[in-house]
């Protein structure tokens, strides 16, 4: 096996495993902000109780995100040193910006958020939570910026320096706002919020099925379900569609692979299910006629560029991209159905709380949203191949020349074993935390005695009595 393939396997494995967690914490974070706002507005201790419970789950998820996230920052250098040399001027600065603007904000306030339940009043706790979630959102923004530059690079020139060619930044604005950036960040944030809200739905539905914590579980669903439904619709109709248009303009070969279009044609169909074979250049399956043309240009007769316009050596693995894309699309449609069905049962004489089938579907929803988010990411990344920087730098040759097969087999095995152990333990602990359920509501007087403004923090002497201080 070539080292390029091994490097790709390792990066794909580690980044996919990492990518399970950030969307989850972004979405759960959003729900925590809602709980916090309700808590401040109403003063009802139920909201604080929910926050206390979900913050523990958030902490668990977040620590997995940190643990697996640092791997990527190392891997650009360890596994893709030729790439790093080539793009250091551009890509590196976006990663550094992520560190200083996003991670520092998250890392700074995380302690206050996780340990705030017994130390902070409602307002300050909400503030700390908001800062952490803001940090996570900045982080997503910078990393999607960096990735979007790899998809639709601009604002640079290539110059030959002593040790090979390098990309130099000519316009920072262009590097940051590449054509794919805005559509992609919107699509990703909406996906993340769906993952998070479905996690809340899943836990709420689980309690209802077990008839435990019924009131709190209903509250969780009342908050999460409308959000989930609106997001599911907006994701397909707005953000997803918008991104498809962007891909058709900027990366026509990727769009052609997503739908298995080989010859340029008008009235191109969009498949619901299908199979495509790039050796025979044939796509079969169930399709809606002309829908792809409409999707990319709001016109059923619009031409869609086929893969024939691109040399075969520059094609991605067509069927892989096709399947990933359709998995995402079909799941996206399913989410709309789940959301609408759930809301209908809720409105229709409160059937939702007792309908065991619907509740079971809700329990499963978080696994499906995770799968949809991952398959969307895979579509974007497999669809970019064989380029590591679209039409600029090939993936083959971007790996570290000095890292051999033996070292790669060692590191891949290490990650596989480590991640299996870590994932298993994480799931066991998550399961335990959920089964333990929310804590009893805290004492209102006690909460009222906690500091709830910056002034109070500074006026107060150290809370902990000590003979030495």
């Amino acid at each position, binding site marked *: 096996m070539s080292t390029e393939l091994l490097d790709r396997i390792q990066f794909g494995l580690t980044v996919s495993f990492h990518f399970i967690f950030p969307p989850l914490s972004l979405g759960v974070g959003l729900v925590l902000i809602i709980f916090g706002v309700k808590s401040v507005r109403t003063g009802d201790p139920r909201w604080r109780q929910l926050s206390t419970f979900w913050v523990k789950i958030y902490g668990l998820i977040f620590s997995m995100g940190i643990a697996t996230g640092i791997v990527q920052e190392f891997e650009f250098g360890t596994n893709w040193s030729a790439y790093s*040399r080539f793009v250091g001027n551009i890509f590196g600065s976006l990663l550094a910006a992520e560190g*200083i603007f996003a991670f*520092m904000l998250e890392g700074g306030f995380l302690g206050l958020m*996780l*340990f705030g339940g017994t*130390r902070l009043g409602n307002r300050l706790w909400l503030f700390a939570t908001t800062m952490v979630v803001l940090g996570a959102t900045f982080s997503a923004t910078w990393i999607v910026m960096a990735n979007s530059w790899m998809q639709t690079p601009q604002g640079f020139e290539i110059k030959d320096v002593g040790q090979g060619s390098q990309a130099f930044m000519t316009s920072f604005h262009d590097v940051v706002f590449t054509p794919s950036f805005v559509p992609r960040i919107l699509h990703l944030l909406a996906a993340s919020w769906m993952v998070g809200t479905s996690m809340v739905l899943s836990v709420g539905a689980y309690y209802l099925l077990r008839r435990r914590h019924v009131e709190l579980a209903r509250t969780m669903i009342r908050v999460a379900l409308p959000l989930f439904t609106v997001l599911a619709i907006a994701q397909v109709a707005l953000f997803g569609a918008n991104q498809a248009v962007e891909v058709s303009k900027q990366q026509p070969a990727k769009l052609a692979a997503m739908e298995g279009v080989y010859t340029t044609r008008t009235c191109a169909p969009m498949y619901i299910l299908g199979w495509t074979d790039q050796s025979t250049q044939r796509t079969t399956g169930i399709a809606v006629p002309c829908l792809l043309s409409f999707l990319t240009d709001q016109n059923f007769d619009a031409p869609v560029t086929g893969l024939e316009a691109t040399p075969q050596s520059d094609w991605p693995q067509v069927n892989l991209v096709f399947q990933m894309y359709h998995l995402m699309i079909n799941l996206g449609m399913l989410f709309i159905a789940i959301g609408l069905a759930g809301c209908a049962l809720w409105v229709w004489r409160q059937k939702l709380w007792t309908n065991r089938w619907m509740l079971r579907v809700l329990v499963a929803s978080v696994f499906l949203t995770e799968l949809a988010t991952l398959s969307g990411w895979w579509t974007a990344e497999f669809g970019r191949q064989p380029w590591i920087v679209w039409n600029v730098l090939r993936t083959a040759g971007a790996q*570290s020349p*000095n890292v051999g097969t033996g070292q790669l087999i060692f590191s891949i095995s290490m990650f596989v074993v480590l991640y299996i152990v870590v994932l298993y333990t994480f799931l066991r602990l998550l399961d335990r935390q959920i089964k333990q359920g929310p804590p009893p509501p805290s004492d209102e007087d006690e909460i009222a005695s906690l500091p709830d403004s910056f002034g109070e923090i500074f006026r107060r002497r150290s809370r*902990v009595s000590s003979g030495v*201080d």
Partner: protein
Amino acid sequence: MSLELIWYVLYVIIISGYAILDGFDLGVGMLSPFIAHTDTERRIMLNAIGPVWDGNEVWLVLGGGALFAAFPLVYASLFSGFYLAMMLVLLVLIGRTVAIEFRSKRESRRWRAGWDLVFSGSSFGITVLLGVALGNVIRGVALDQSGTMDVGLLDLLNPFSLAVAVTAVAMFMLHGSIFLSQKVEGDLLDRVTMLVPRLMIGFFVLMTGLIGWTLLRTETFADNYRDRPWIAVFPVLALAAALTAWRQIRRTRYFTAFLASATMIAALLCAVAAGLYPVMIPSATDPAFSLTVHNASAADSTLTVMLVFAVIGMPFVLLYTAGVYYFFRGRVRLDEESY
């Protein structure tokens, strides 16, 4: 001052920030099996760093990002050249993060003992690996003309680098114990304060020996200290800070002792950086192949953008870092949210 030099200085500041902040929590991790006797004591030590360890580790992430952006060729050569060592760093970083989060989630004694082992083992692991990496950078590596190297894991473990690693372990343990003296009380505090002088003596001997060894074996260092004698201010400052830390501990002024210990760490790293300058990774093959501040840095356009980021971002970072430490000041109290 050229942009390259500014970024070299900023980079030394980031690395020092990392060593000062994560240094004490790695130190606490390494000390934990030796001075905590009961589960409660282990938890107190863990929660002493509980609200801040993640923020501290971010400095390492920032260090990685800043190296990638400001000195991409150093980043690419170093990370790919030390491949297996870097993979082991990732292993222990992941192990440590999950150990902190998982440890107290179950009551089982075996569970806790297992994760305690991972926590302290990985704290040692990170310190040793980073020490070994720094040692090899000071010593020089087999860098070829294209700026690549392939250094096996065993080549990394040479006596000089191991000496740097042992010194780093002693330094972080000392720093960690001084930090803990502000955080624990009762028997545990007695044990910590008893340990400080011993660690101090051990570290003192190691540090002095290492400074001598470095000046003897590394020509760049000797030349730099001869040509620019003013940089001797850094090692002298480190020694003075170490002595101050000792005095303040004896007077039970733990916070000023901690500041002194932090100054000592920063001064030592500055001493190394000043000794190497302008070289960042010396080539043992041919000095002409060395990666320097000049030939390995990013273009001025990138460095300028990054400088703007640093100027905007750093004050915020310092502000909320200070705020969080202020909020969690005082001795540890366990509650239902603790690790």
